């Protein structure tokens, strides 16, 4: 059992609100991802759970025990958590074995048991043959796994991961993603994972929390977040998206700048923002919903990545690879919109991603 409860947690630095009034419960064995652009408050939230920062107001409980509130504060070393830092923080003055053994030594575990446990966890992260190495003789990916082993060795209730993969190269990152997920399922621990990389969030999480400027935008499963984003920010931050402006009236939306309409069954009227994912647009010869002009196209091998201007906007369309080369610039192209999201008009800053 390990449930982390955040109860109206707010963090301010002076007048700057870093995290505003966050309430939720992270369940046992759940893989939770805090997703957002840098500076959105996700790392601060993780550090408050770890005990490196105190919430300005609100309460944090681990398994019902209050660890942070107006009058209680349990320091990090008493919380029984594991954590992997973005910079790995592998101690350069200890070899791999001693780095990993450290949490057990602090807990005064007998020597023999320490050896067993460290060997076991090193095996889990595929580092058994490096036990005697100094960290300076390890690659970034190996150091990262030392950090992971150190966080896991004391069998923590909860594992906190602060952008642990952001310093690795693309291939290794993808590989570690699956390893982390596999370790989590095998050991059945809860994970709270901070990242700004939406594909990491999509592949690993049970629930994703999208945060922007300290405010929770939406929480839900990866599919919920992707398919039914609550607002333009979430739609834009998670996955690729095209925005169109239009006016909704009597079951139709008239697209700004051109004389074409899309069918609409929702209940918004007046000015609206339409969000369409590139994979939901198809290029057709006839029965098109909309018409546009080809601006540019890029052959990516498995698809044709096109920019098509429709009215005032330019839409990105991921078309079938076979379409490539069939149209010339300024040709009129027919488009079918398979799926779209309609939002009330938003101020620009809801759509702007701060990075």
């Amino acid at each position, binding site marked *: 059992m390990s449930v982390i409860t955040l109860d109206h947690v707010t963090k301010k630095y002076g007048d700057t609100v870093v995290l505003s009034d966050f309430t939720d419960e992270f369940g046992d064995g759940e893989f939770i991802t805090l997703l957002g652009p840098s500076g959105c408050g996700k790392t601060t939230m993780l550090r408050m759970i*770890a*005990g*490196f920062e105190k919430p300005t107001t609100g309460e944090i409980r681990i398994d019902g025990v209050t660890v942070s509130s107006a009058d209680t504060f349990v*320091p*990090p*070393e*008493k*919380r*029984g*958590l*594991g*954590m992997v*830092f*973005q*910079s*790995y*923080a592998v*101690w*350069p*003055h200890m070899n791999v074995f001693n780095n990993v053994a*450290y*949490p057990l030594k*602090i*807990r005064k575990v007998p020597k023999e048991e320490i050896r067993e446990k460290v060997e076991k966890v090193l095996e889990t992260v595929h580092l058994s043959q490096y036990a005697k190495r100094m960290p300076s003789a390890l690659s970034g990916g190996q150091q990262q796994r030392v*950090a992971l082993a*150190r*966080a896991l060795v*004391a069998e923590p209730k909860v594992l*906190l991961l602060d952008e642990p993969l952001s310093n690795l190269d693309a291939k290794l990152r993808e590989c570690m993603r699956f390893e982390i997920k596999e370790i989590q399922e095998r050991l059945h621990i809860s994970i709270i994972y901070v990242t700004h990389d939406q594909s990491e969030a999509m592949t690993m999480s049970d629930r994703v929390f999208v945060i922007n400027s300290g405010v929770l935008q939406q929480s839900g499963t990866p599919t919920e977040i992707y398919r039914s984003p609550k607002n333009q920010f979430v739609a834009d931050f998670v996955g690729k998206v095209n925005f169109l402006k239009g006016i909704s009236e009597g079951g139709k939306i008239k697209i700004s700048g051109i004389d074409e309409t899309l069918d609409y069954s929702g209940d918004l009227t007046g000015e609206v923002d339409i969000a369409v994912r590139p994979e939901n647009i198809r290029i057709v010869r006839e029965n098109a919903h909309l018409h546009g002009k080809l601006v540019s196209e890029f052959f990516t091998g498995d698809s044709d990545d096109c920019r098509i201007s429709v009215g005032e906007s330019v839409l990105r369309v991921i078309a079938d690879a076979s379409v490539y080369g069939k149209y010339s610039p300024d040709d009129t192209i027919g488009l079918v919109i398979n799926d779209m999201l309609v939002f009330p008009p938003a101020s620009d800053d809801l759509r702007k991603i701060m990075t």
Partner: protein
Amino acid sequence: MEKKRKFYFDIKWLFIIAIVGFLLVFQVFPLLYLVIRAFFVDGQFTTDAFTRIYSSDINLSCVLNTLVAASLSMVFGVLIALPLAFLVGRTNLYGRSLFRSLFLMTYMVPPYVGAMAWLRLLNPKVGTLNMLLMNVFGLSDAPFNIYSIPGLVWVLTTFYYPYAFITLSRAMENMDPSLEESARISGSSPLKTLFTVTLPLMLPSIAASALLVFVAAASCYGIPSIIGAPAKIYTITTRIVDYVYIGSADGLTDATVLAVFLMVLALVILFISNFVIGRRDYIMISGKSVRPNIVDLGKWRLPLTILVGLFAVVVIVIPFISVFATSFTVNMGKSVFEDGNFTLKYWETIFSRSSIRSSTGNSIITSVCAASFGMIICIIMAYLLKRTNVPGRKIPDFLITVGSGTPSVAIALALIMTMSGRFGINIYNTIWIMIIAYMIKYMLMGMRTVVSALSQVSPSLEEAAQVSGAGWLRRLKDVMFPLITPSVVAGWFLIFMPCFYELTMSNMLYSDKTKSLGIELYQYQTYHSQQTAAALAGGILILVVVLNVIMNKVTKGKFSI
């Protein structure tokens, strides 16, 4: 065609050759000569050098005094600097930035000023602090005697702990905080983290700072000459200067041997701390959070602040006040506040007396020249070092580092022996010999400043100018100089200040016409009027502070002392 293209002349070579040439003639050759002179007498190789050190009681005692005083100062200096660096850099102590500036200020004050102050406070007969303690506790004898080895160690420690403080503060503040955080999350208490992670990571820096204090204390002349000489406690440096004053052939040989001993000691330590410890330096700067963890002192916050405050008052405030008080006192046996004991005449003296004015003028000329020529060399060298692959670009950097690590007495002695006509160059008794000595000793400060500035300017800025067609000199002028000007200004001051009040080398190299401010002050202190010396020292202190404020303004807080 092709052959011609391969063979164009690289102008960078001209600069390297010129600078290396300068350093070879005025630094490497004199120092080598010193070593050779110590081992070859009349063209014969001899190990008399060693015998001379331990067979003569005079020499042996000064070597022992130096080693004992420097070792003790090293131990105490680190013991003081380590907790101070931690409290000021890594805790929520009150008034941290004030304390930091106070501790760093000592770094820029000439050491002999400290010696003067403590002399006045702890003189066994009339020391102010001694008298006070005798009155308060009803003692019949003075509790402290500054004219002793412990007295010497005390003043050396209070003057050289800032060296360790600077190194240790930097190491503590640059440490990646997540190294400590991961210990905390592993279950380790703050205290345990300090001992298992923070301090082990700091070990190389602690060792390096200890060696730094040792070398500085062993090479110091100002403090032992003012405190040790009256007590007949001689150190290597004071002995060398005495031998040079006596000027006999035997004396010069003894001076040479002692200087070589000190120089080898200093350079071996420099080598150890740069290349052996430096390699093991764990301190790394991580990209993410540069803000160090601040330890909450809890209920210890106020008591520790008071303790650090007391230390600052005793070691910095009281000595400086005593210097100023002395400069206003008519009768030194009485308090400055007694009726008729207050006077401004010593301050008038230092601005009116022609000898003081001419010495000040000399010091300004020599230190402005040393700082300006020094910075020109530093800029070019730092540039070649950081931005080009010219072979040999590391040689001048190495030589400048060695020059700065060489004790002042050795530099001065080497220049005296080689630059007085024997080898075709005679600049003895001119200001040039002083300027060259200053440059060799202090150029490193400027070099470091410029190198660190260059490392922070991305090479692509310059590559953009190169692609636009600008040649090397043109790029320096259009891109590099505007970007590094603040650091250049800071570097200039960092060379200027220690040259301005330099004592050790000036004392060995001056002639009647090239007397410097440091010598003037020293002579007033020793022979004529301690009050006039105190007024001069007070003036220097004010100037140091003012220059620092200017430097801080010019570089927008990036550089001060």
